[in-house]
């Protein structure tokens, strides 16, 4: 098995774990944590592909990862802000109780 495949497998594992967390936890913050994990797994993929790409000088994957890190920071800030304000209004962070948007 090539090293790239190894990294990809680890990334897939992390992604799955994050997804599981996002799918199974009640607490909105923990769902966010899961999402962060998924994002990181994606970053790992990007970096791995960059490392083993024929032209690493082009920096494509690296740039992708860097930008996604920046975006993830923004996402976390907004997401947590939302969670906090939701908590202030609904007095809960339990996603099962946050179903007011149902049609």
């Amino acid at each position: 098995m090539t090293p790239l495949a190894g990294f990809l497998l680890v990334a897939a594992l992390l992604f799955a774990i994050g997804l599981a967390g996002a799918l199974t936890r009640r607490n909105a913050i923990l769902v966010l944590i899961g999402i962060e994990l998924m994002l990181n797994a994606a970053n790992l993929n990007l970096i791995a592909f960059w490392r083993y790409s024929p032209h690493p000088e082009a920096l494509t994957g690296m740039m992708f990862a860097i930008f996604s890190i920046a975006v993830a920071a923004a996402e976390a800030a907004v997401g947590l802000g939302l969670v906090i304000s939701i908590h202030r209004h609904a007095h809960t962070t339990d996603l099962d109780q946050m179903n007011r948007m149902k049609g």
Partner: protein
Amino acid sequence: MSFVFYLVSAMAVAGALAAVLLKNTVHCALALTVAFAGLALLFLDLDAQFAGFAQILVYIGAVAILIVFAILLTRGSETPKDGVYSRNWLAGLAIAAAVFSVLGWAVLQSAWTLPHETAVPTVTVHDIGDALVGRYVLPLEIVALLLTAATIGAVIVAMHEKGGAK
């Protein structure tokens, strides 16, 4: 596939598992930092110094702290009475497992086509800087805009909340 790789990825995966499974939310957050650190080390193992350090700086330095703040501000640390897992969590687990199996299958399918060892890329931070303000300047600007918007938005959404404002 060095020893370092196995060690570090084990660390990352363990951290991730803990982050997802632990009962106490703050423990989850701390475990998450472990996972982040592991990922950063993986990046370093991939000769991506800049990304690795950026990872530590952003995720451990900012995101983890944010999460912790949010947990404390939302009294999230005390475990709720009706379990930490959402109802029909089994389905979620199954789906996650399905995703992993499919992804892993995909990787293994194409494992032999993937490239083997390649030369260590000689990319300095200087190159990255050049690329950032050169070829990728537009994305850079956009990200800058996005961050500004996110900051303002977070401040607005969670007004008076330190957690949101950073």
